[in-house]
């Protein structure tokens, strides 16, 4: 355990890197995913199919394969991303698929009757979306989305495999010096656990808090 405590300072940079990657992935994918999700649920057929295909395609491939493809594969096509941006691109592309599905689920969980009631008082499509559908959908979007955020943090550990100096890579580096793997892995597990557990606990809390709104 001594070794683990002494190694803590060496993990700070990696932890920050993990948080930065997670933050970028989560925020970029949120914007793109919500826009694409809106297209999926409300858009015309020509918009629906490409988005549907994208989401099913990207969620059907292991993230690791995606990361390797973007980092090692794309340079062959003339697109050179350094390992940091390759990691961001691959993880974001993947997370967008999740956000699309979470958004779709949230919006479609709002019963059709809400649209009818909103139509009956004369609201137009965008007004219905802004004042009736989305305010309710947000409550159903948040809990699964926060879980998706926790997923992103966990998934980010894979970027160590293309040499991004995140928490996982720092742990490996320290082990490379101390030859004492177990304390470091346990320490790493605890750090990831603290981050992700607080996220999933938030998600659960929101779920209970919002449950009263369900008719």
């Amino acid at each position, binding site marked *: 355990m001594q070794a683990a405590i002494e190694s803590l300072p060496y993990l700070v940079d990696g932890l920050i890197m993990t948080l930065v990657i997670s933050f970028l992935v989560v925020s970029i994918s949120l914007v793109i995913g919500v826009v694409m999700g809106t297209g999926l649920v409300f858009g015309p057929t020509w918009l629906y199919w490409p988005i549907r295909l994208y989401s*099913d*395609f990207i969620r059907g491939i*292991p993230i690791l394969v995606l990361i390797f493809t973007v980092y090692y*594969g794309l340079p062959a096509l003339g697109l050179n991303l350094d390992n940091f941006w390759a990691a961001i691109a691959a993880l974001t592309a993947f997370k967008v698929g999740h956000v699309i599905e979470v958004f779709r689920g949230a919006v479609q969980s709002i019963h059709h009757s809400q649209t009818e009631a909103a139509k009956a008082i004369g609201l137009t499509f965008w007004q219905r979306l802004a004042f009736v559908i989305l305010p309710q959908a947000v409550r159903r979007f948040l809990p699964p989305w926060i879980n998706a955020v926790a997923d992103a943090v966990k998934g980010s550990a894979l970027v160590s495999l293309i040499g991004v100096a995140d928490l996982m890579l720092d742990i490996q580096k320290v082990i490379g010096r101390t030859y004492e793997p177990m304390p470091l892995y346990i320490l790493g597990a605890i750090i990831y656990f603290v981050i*992700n557990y607080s996220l999933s606990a938030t998600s659960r809390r929101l779920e209970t808090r919002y449950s009263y709104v369900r008719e």
Partner: protein
Amino acid sequence: MDYHFNFSYIWRHFDRLWDGLILSLELALISILIGMAIGLVLSLLYTDGGRPIRSLVLAYVELVRNVPLLLLVYLVFYGIPSIGGFEYSATASFVITLSAYAAAHLVEVFRAGLDAVPKGLLDAGKAIGLSPWQRLIHVRLPTMFRVVLPSLSNTYISLFKDTSVASVIAVPELTYGAQWINFNTFRIIEVYAVVAPMYLVTGYAILFALQRLERRFVVRR
């Protein structure tokens, strides 16, 4: 773009990808079976057990679910032998990891399934004089499995994708096969252009097959 695609190297070594794919499917299958056994026991302990047992089960579930799979793979393969003074093969260690990982996710699934068994059904079982064990075998489990079937299919597919992480400890599954060809031929984009569809097609083929099976199962009841 002046890159010239050349798939001939891929086809020459395609057996590595094919064998890798089969191994991936096997790893996922063994892991989900072990994971289901553990998950079932844990979920029953959780549902029927007292407070201390519930906390223990919950602690296990939360610990495993909130740590990256990659870290768990390292921990089981490098970490545990380093203090236990024994060794096991990379494949065996990965199966242990993925089973433990699957179990943690399945506890949640089974727990929800057990909660979904209507109380009236259990009362009906009591009313015809079934023992608790008989009620479990003939009422609770069959009802629960019907509820959780779709989640089991999804879990299997996601475990299948997770087997790609086994490549980091050189288990010769599909992603490892891809890396081997990369290192030996440098036809990287071609390899992934073949491997990604292999994951995709296999995953969706299994999903559709399982969904058909589910439907038949549901109709037959």
